[in-house]
């Protein structure tokens, strides 16, 4: 078995040998672009989060009360937890469901492969009719799924699958599968498959080979898929708003309603800043976790 371990030894990645100039040449253009088109505009809006909102208007008076409201009031704290919880569950589902598809697409030799690959984009492209209508037809109490399950005698009473967090989780998992599959594929394809053969030649069975060779080597893809799904689930608006209905509240629906309808921009921008921090913290934590496993994020 030690032979297997040797065979799967991490590639000698990330040797720090490039110059600072080369680094700047690579990092500066995208960084500068994002600072100008994203960070500065966002900062201009986020300034509002430090102003008081009173009787429908912004008062020019610095305050931290918007943050205090969001982080102190039990209702908003619950919204933050729900957002975290839903996004975590979605990220886990997406990654679990994406891996087999990515593995299959990487290893298959069928001539239909380009079609199968393209089809993975379909959920993300399926658009607003699906979100507003397709899922309702399937999930509602008198919908397809409940009817089929009841006819088969698997259910006595219809499951409640719309206008709750279950519906949001199903809808988000579906729409984000695209990102999971392609990200994991990128990892699977960069991997040297002879390592798997080597492990098998050394006596490992399929499951052992997968768990001890393939899985660790594709950890960047798994973490990448997890992060993308998490971040996108946390920021998604349409799916939670429509499938969740308004008895579901997550950060993005809160922000949208405050920004467009309630017109409380200070509270909306404070919520946006908190959401940004949550997602970037997750990125850092995943980075640390990956780093310990030799797969820097």
């Amino acid at each position: 078995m030690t032979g297997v371990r040797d065979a799967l030894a991490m590639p000698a990645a990330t040797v720090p040998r490039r110059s600072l100039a080369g680094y700047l040449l690579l990092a500066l253009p995208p960084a500068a672009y994002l600072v100008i088109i994203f960070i500065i505009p966002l900062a201009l809006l986020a300034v509002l989060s430090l102003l008081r909102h009173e009787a429908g208007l912004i008062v020019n008076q610095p305050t931290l009360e918007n943050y205090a409201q969001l982080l102190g009031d039990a209702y908003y704290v619950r919204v933050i937890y729900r957002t975290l919880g839903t996004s975590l569950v979605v990220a886990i589902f997406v990654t679990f469901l994406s891996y087999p598809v990515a593995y299959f697409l990487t290893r298959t030799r069928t001539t239909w492969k380009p079609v199968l690959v393209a089809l993975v984009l379909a959920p993300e492209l399926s658009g607003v009719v699906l979100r507003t209508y397709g899922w309702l037809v399937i999930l509602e109490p008198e919908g397809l799924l409940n009817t089929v399950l009841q006819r088969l005698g698997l259910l006595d009473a219809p499951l409640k699958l719309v206008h709750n967090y279950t519906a949001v989780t199903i809808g988000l998992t579906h729409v984000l599968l695209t990102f999971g599959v392609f990200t994991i594929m990128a990892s699977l394809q960069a991997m040297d498959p002879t390592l798997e053969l080597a492990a098998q030649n050394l006596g490992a069975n399929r499951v052992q080979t997968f768990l001890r060779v393939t899985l660790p080597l594709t950890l960047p893809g798994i973490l990448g898929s997890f992060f993308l799904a998490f971040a996108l689930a946390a920021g998604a608006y349409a799916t939670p708003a429509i499938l969740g209905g308004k008895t579901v509240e997550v950060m993005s629906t809160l922000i949208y309603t405050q920004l467009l309808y309630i017109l409380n921009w200070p509270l909306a921008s404070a919520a946006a800043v908190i959401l940004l921090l949550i997602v970037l913290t997750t990125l850092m934590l995943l980075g640390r976790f990956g780093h310990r496993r030799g797969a820097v994020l």
Partner: protein
Amino acid sequence: MPVQRMIERTLPRAAFTLVVLAIYAFMFLPIAVVLVTSVGASRYLEFPPRALSLRWYQAALVKDWIEPAWVSFNLALMSAGIATLLGSAGAFAIVRHRFRGRDAIAALLHSPLAIPSIVAGVAIVQFFTVVGAKWLLGFPALLLAHAMETIPFVTRTVSVSLLGVDRTLEQAAMNLGARRWQMLRYVTLPLIKPGLFAGAAFAFVVSFNNVNLSLFLVRPGVITLPIRIMNFLEFGVAPVLAAVNILSLAAVLVVVAVAERVGGFTKFLYGQ
């Protein structure tokens, strides 16, 4: 023994294929509902439709829908191009270099993912107003914003690819006398092609679908397909939208399938 061996070999494979099929079914069942609805003859969305007709496809294939679709297509293509260039440069920087502030750069490159795009939309239109760049509204502003929104996708997928690349291969190429650009061109690039493809594809579909960023950046006369759909939605979900959905989905899938066929982006590289 051979029989048992055969079962041992094929059973997991059959089970695996079944799982993959089930996941594909999960991806397609809801879309099938939209597809079936789109060939209904009624003025409302009906499932299942009582009568079949292609009238909504006829209604979808008119200038009012094709023009915004063309704007969206060009916009998605160009923003995917910009995002791919900038995003992969960023990926090389954060994966291949170890410098102080690398974490900050990584966070920066991913930050657009973390903000609902309605916030970015309001923030950007406000920024353009404040700095007197309102003349950018319309296609230029859409392009700048969509590229911003899609950079993280490319950075992420290219990083994932780069992390899997065996550096000894690059070293070997250099040892054999390749110049750095030759090494990049003939060794690194083929190895990260799947990551580039995935990132560009993400950038394309994310731009092609974007509503909440575009909402604030379009100007009269230059609207994208999702905005046209959203405007239409003001009066409820009409069956023509199902047809528009299916047509644009099919068009993008064909483009991607052809690109994949021609480019061979997801070929199994080492093995062949």
